[in-house]
């Protein structure tokens, strides 16, 4: 599974990106499970001031979310916590 995540917005307005091929990273199976769980949930962008906006592409499908949903939030936290990703 290939996942690309881009975070924009936030108080500092700073853009942050990560790309992961779950076949090539440690804990890849766990990330796949989190992604499968998240994509069953509705993804909706946050329009509240200074909230982060996340664009997540999972195997070619794009989701835009504010990360408020716990399932999306868990995936986002895991992706940014995965070491060695650029």
């Amino acid at each position: 599974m290939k996942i690309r995540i881009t975070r924009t917005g936030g108080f500092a307005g700073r853009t942050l990106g990560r790309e992961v091929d779950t076949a090539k990273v440690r804990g890849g199976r766990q990330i796949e499970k989190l992604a499968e769980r998240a994509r069953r949930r509705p993804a909706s962008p946050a329009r509240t001031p200074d909230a982060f906006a996340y664009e997540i592409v999972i195997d070619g499908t794009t989701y835009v979310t504010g990360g408020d949903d716990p399932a999306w939030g868990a995936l986002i936290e895991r992706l940014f916590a995965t070491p060695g990703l650029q």
Partner: protein
Amino acid sequence: MRCSFLPPYILRHLAERAEGDLREHAQAALEESAQLRGERAVAALVALVVPAGEKRRTVYDARHGRTLPGKLVRGEGDPRGRDAAVNEAYDGAGKTYDFYQKVYARNSIDGRGMRLDSTVHYGVKFDNAQWNGRQMIYGDGDGELFRRFTKSLDVIGHELTHGVTQYAANLDYADQPGALNESFSDVFGVLVKQYTRKQTAAKADWLIGAGLLTRRVQGQAIRSMKTPGTAYDDPLLGRDPQPAHMRDYKRMRTDNGGVHVNSGIPNHAFYLAATRIGGKAWEVAGRIWYEVLTRELHATALFRDCAEATVEVAGRLFGSASAPRDAVLEAWKTVGVLG
């Protein structure tokens, strides 16, 4: 306006929802009609809508989770504790409340004494501060680039002002209205800091988020109203992307259309107007911007609408041939919003 002819339910609506004079008239009329008719019900109504004029603050600790608001750790009047983030959130909310109350006679975020709720230690190494429509949320920062977000008083003023905007112009959080929403938060955030420090426009640093970046970062703050685009330039953090002129307006898909980027243009206009007027920025320039935010703008206002409204309000408050009006007009011309 002769509010006393209006029925109580309309007065009540006005007293609750309207801004400034209109609201005061409605409240006075409600009181008057209560006294005249000796109606207990109306008197009770007045007690409900007339704000107490007291600040009420609560601080919660999310304990690195994402459940809001978290555990209550400090209420109004409670003594200081050991947690710096809690103390900063509490003190910063107090200073922001005092600023709005003393300078613009505004009773809290909604003008009706709304309680100021803050949650600290939100998430793990969370690099953000935000207003979620009901409360302020502060992260601890990652420690490598960002320190805790309660560290800067102007950040706290910025977040609280998002609340004020929500109850005033309620500017859409995208594109030009969104950049205006951001800019009003920076303007009043920086004014809270200047007011607290008793600083003149000439002495102030005009920086947003000074003290937020760690020593490792090559930069002095997150944004500069004096020279947008120069706040930081760092290998890891990148370079401050803010424009200071309309010709450099950035059309972008991300960041809700670049609300944190293009806010540099109206930010710089405020800086130019305030420094040209001189003295304490909250007294004249701030007064004009406050009137515009609370009375003149609608949710889809563009830069040009804001610029025209500030010029008009400056003329109304200080005279059509006054120095403040000239300064405001000149400022918007310099940033390329007015021709």
